[in-house]
C-alpha cells in the first residue's frame, strides 16, 4: 500500500499516454457491458418469475395456423385450469408498416384477461370500462407515451390476416409485462368476419398452481394429438425462448464478439505497458541497484497496468450506468420493445465485465514486467536510450 503513491506518480508521468490507455479500455468495456446486458435480456423471464403458471397453446405446425374455438372449450374443462382465453395474433398495421409504428395487437377475452395476466396493474381507466365497451382497447403504458395517446382516444387498425378497418377506443392502460401491446375483444373479429369466427392462432391459459400447470402441458398436447388441429403447449418462458431462438444464434455471436473485443483491449494495453517499460530500463536498474527486490518491482509494474484497467473499467461502468436510461428508452421505442421488459442493469453482467477487464490489464502488464525485472542490473544501467 505504501507504494501506491509511487505507482500513481509513474502513471501520471505520461498523462496523455495514461489518458489514452484508459480511454482505449473504457470504450471496449462499454461495448462488452452492452452486449452482455443484451444477452442477459434475451435470457430473462419476461414475466419476472410470475409466468410459471401461464401456458401458451398454438397449432403444432406453427403459430401462423389457426385452431377452432372448440379447442378452447375442451381446455377450459380440464382440471387444474384457472382460466383460458383466445390470444389471437391480429397483425395488421397502425398508420403504416414503418418500424416506428410496430407494436403487438392481440384479440383476447376481456372477461378473464386479468385472471391470466394477474400481475398487470391498471394505471388509467379501469378493467370494467374496458369490458363494458365491445370496441374498447387495453393499451400498455409505454405505447401511450410513445404515441402521445390519451384515454378515450380512437385508434384505427387495418387488418391483413383479419381483413377490415377496425376503430377502437382506449379504455384502460396497464403497466406490467409486454407493455408494447394492445388488447381487444375477440368478438370484434368474430362479428366482422363471420366466416372465420372462432378461429384462434393461440390460446393462453393459467393453471391454478405450478404443479397443475406442469401436468397440463403433456395433457393438452395428448388431448389434440390425433385431432385435425394438433397443438403444442408450452410455458410462457419456453414460448419466449422459442421466440428468441427465431433470431438465430445471437448469444454465440455476441459472446464471440465480446471475446474479440477483450483481445483488442489486451493488445492495446500490452503495447502501452511495453512502451513505458522500455523507456524505464535504466530507472528500473537503478531501483534494483539501491535494493528494490525483483518481486517488489514486478508487483509495482503489474499494479500499474492493473490500475489503468481499474480506472478504465470504473469510468466505463459509470458511463454505462449514466447512459442506461437512454438505452432503455431506445429499445422500448424500437420494434423489439417487447423484449425490453427484461432490460435492467444486471449486476452479474457488469461485475463479469469488470473482472474480465482487470484480468486483461494484469495480463497486459505481465510480459513487459517479467522482461524488465529479469534484465541484469549492469545491462540495464549500461543501456543508453
Amino acid at each position, binding site marked *: 500500500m505504501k507504494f501506491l503513491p509511487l505507482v500513481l506518480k509513474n502513471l501520471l508521468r505520461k498523462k496523455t499516454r495514461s489518458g489514452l490507455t484508459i480511454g482505449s*479500455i473504457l*470504450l471496449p468495456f462499454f461495448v462488452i457491458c452492452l452486449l452482455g446486458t443484451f444477452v442477459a435480456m434475451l435470457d430473462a423471464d419476461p414475466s419476472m418469475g410470475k409466468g410459471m403458471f401461464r401456458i401458451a397453446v398454438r397449432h403444432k*405446425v*406453427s403459430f401462423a395456423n389457426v385452431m377452432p374455438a372448440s379447442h378452447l372449450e375442451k381446455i377450459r374443462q380440464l382440471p387444474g385450469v384457472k382460466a383460458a382465453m383466445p390470444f389471437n395474433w391480429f*397483425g395488421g*398495421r397502425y398508420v403504416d408498416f414503418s418500424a416506428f409504428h410496430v407494436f403487438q395487437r392481440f384479440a383476447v377475452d376481456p372477461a378473464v384477461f386479468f385472471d391470466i395476466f394477474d400481475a398487470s396493474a391498471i394505471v388509467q381507466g379501469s378493467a370494467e370500462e374496458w369490458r363494458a365497451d365491445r370496441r374498447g382497447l387495453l393499451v400498455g403504458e409505454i405505447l401511450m407515451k410513445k404515441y402521445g395517446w390519451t384515454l378515450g382516444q380512437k385508434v384505427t387498425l387495418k387488418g391483413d390476416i383479419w*381483413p377490415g378497418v377496425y376503430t377502437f377506443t382506449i379504455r384502460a392502460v396497464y403497466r406490467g409485462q409486454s407493455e408494447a401491446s394492445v388488447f381487444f375483444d375477440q368478438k370484434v373479429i368474430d362479428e366482422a368476419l363471420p366466416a372465420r369466427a372462432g378461429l384462434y392462432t393461440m390460446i393462453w391459459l393459467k393453471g391454478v398452481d405450478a404443479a397443475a400447470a406442469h401436468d397440463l402441458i403433456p395433457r393438452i398436447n395428448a388431448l389434440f394429438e390425433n385431432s385435425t388441429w394438433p397443438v403444442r403447449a408450452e410455458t410462457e418462458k419456453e414460448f419466449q425462448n422459442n421466440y428468441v431462438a427465431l433470431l438465430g444464434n445471437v448469444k454465440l455471436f455476441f459472446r464471440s464478439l465480446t471475446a474479440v473485443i477483450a483481445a483488442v483491449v489486451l493488445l492495446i494495453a500490452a503495447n502501452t505497458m511495453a*512502451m513505458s517499460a522500455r523507456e524505464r530500463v535504466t530507472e528500473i536498474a537503478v531501483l534494483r541497484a539501491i535494493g528494490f527486490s525483483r518481486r517488489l518491482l514486478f508487483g509495482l509494474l503489474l499494479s500499474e497496468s492493473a490500475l489503468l484497467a481499474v480506472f478504465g473499467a470504473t469510468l466505463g461502468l459509470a458511463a454505462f450506468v449514466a447512459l442506461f436510461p437512454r438505452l432503455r428508452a431506445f429499445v422500448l421505442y424500437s420494434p423489439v420493445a417487447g423484449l425490453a421488459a427484461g432490460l435492467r442493469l444486471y449486476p452479474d453482467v457488469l461485475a463479469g465485465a469488470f473482472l474480465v477487464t482487470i484480468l486483461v490489464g494484469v495480463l497486459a502488464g505481465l510480459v513487459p514486467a517479467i522482461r524488465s525485472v529479469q534484465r541484469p542490473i549492469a545491462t540495464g544501467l549500461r543501456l543508453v536510450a
Partner: protein
Amino acid sequence: MLGIPLKYNIRNLFVRKVTTSLTVLGIGLVVAVFLCVMALGEGLTRVFTASGSDSNVLVLRQNSQSELQSGISRDQVPLILTLPGIAPDADGKPLASAELVVVLNLEKLGGGSSNVTIRGIGEKGMKLRPGLTLVEGRWFAPGKSEVVVSKSVSKRFKDCTTGQTIHFGAYRWTVVGLFDAGGTAPDSEIWTDVEGMVTDFKRGGYSSVLARTSGRAARDQFVAGLAGDARLALEGKVERKYYDDQTSTAAPIKFLGFFVGIVMAIGACFGAMNTMYAAVSARTREIATLRALGFSRLAVLASFVFESLCLALLGGIVGCFLGLLAVKLALSGVTGTTNFATFSEVVFAFRLTPQLLGTGIVFSLVMGFFGGLFPAARAAFTKITSALRQVG
C-alpha cells in the same frame, strides 16, 4: 516545398517491430470484427436484393405486408387471370401460379427449432422462377405429398434430406429432391404442389398469385387493373419490390456492425495515438535536426501523419486478411435468422464483398489519420533549440 523522404517513416516502423506489430494487430482485429459483422448484414441483404423479378407481379390481399398475412379465395383466381397484362405461356394459358404459403416449425440439426416456409406452387410456378436448379433427386409429383427442399434448408433442419420424411401430426411429406436458388429467397423454402397442400391444410384458398407480365406497360396495366377492381380487394406488387421492402430485416445487424465498429475504432485510434506519441518523443532530437536542416513544419506534420497512415494501412490489410480467413474458414456455412415480416427463417451465408473490404481499408485509414494527427502536430511544433540540447 521539400518533403521528408517516405522511406524515413517506413524504416522507422520496421525498427520498432514489437510496438508496430502490436498496434497493427490491434487495428487489424477491429477491422476484422467490423468486416465480419458487416458480412453478416451483407449476406442477409443480398437474399432480398437478389430475389424476385421485375416482370413478375405478386398479387396479395390489400394491406398485407407479406404472403403469410395474405389470402386469396379460390373464386378470385379466375378473375385475376382474366385481367389484361399477364403474359401467355407457350400453351396459351396465362403464365401465373396461385400459391399457398404456410410456416412449419421444424427442428434444427443443432437443437432448437425455427419456422420454415413451405410453399405450394401451381404448374407454372417453376417457369416463373428460372434461376432455380435441381441439385439432387427429382421434382415433386403433384398430389403425392412429395416436397423438394432447398439445399441450404436441408443443411440446417432435421429430416430434410432426400428420402427422408417430414412428420407433423397427421401430415407427412416425403423429400424427393434438393434445389438451389443461388442465394435468393426460395433457398429458405420447401416446395410442393399447391393443390395437395390446400387439401392437407384444409384451406379454402391461396395466399398469393404470382403472374408474369410482358413488359413494363403490361405490368403497370395489370397492377392498375387489380387496384381498380373493388370487388377483389387485392393489390399487385412487383416481385422485386416486394423482396426489396424486406431488406430492413438486416438493418439491426448493420446498425450493430457500425456501432461496435465505431466505438472499437475510437479505442484502437487511442492505441495508435499512444504508439505515435511514443514514436515522436523517442525521436525528438531527430525531428529537431530535420527542422534545423530546413524541413518545414508542414513537412514534419505530413511525414508523421504519413507514418501513422502506413501503420493503419498495415492494420487494415491484416484486418481484411483476418476477416477473409474468418469468413472463408470459420463462417463459411449457411446461417439463418427470422424475417419478422414473414415469420419464417431466412437462410443465408456471410458475404464479404470487395466493397466491404474497401470500406475496411478506409476505416483503418481514418483511424490512422486521427491517431496520427495530434502526435504529428506535437512533432511539428518541437522547439528546435531546446530539443537539440536535450540529452538522450
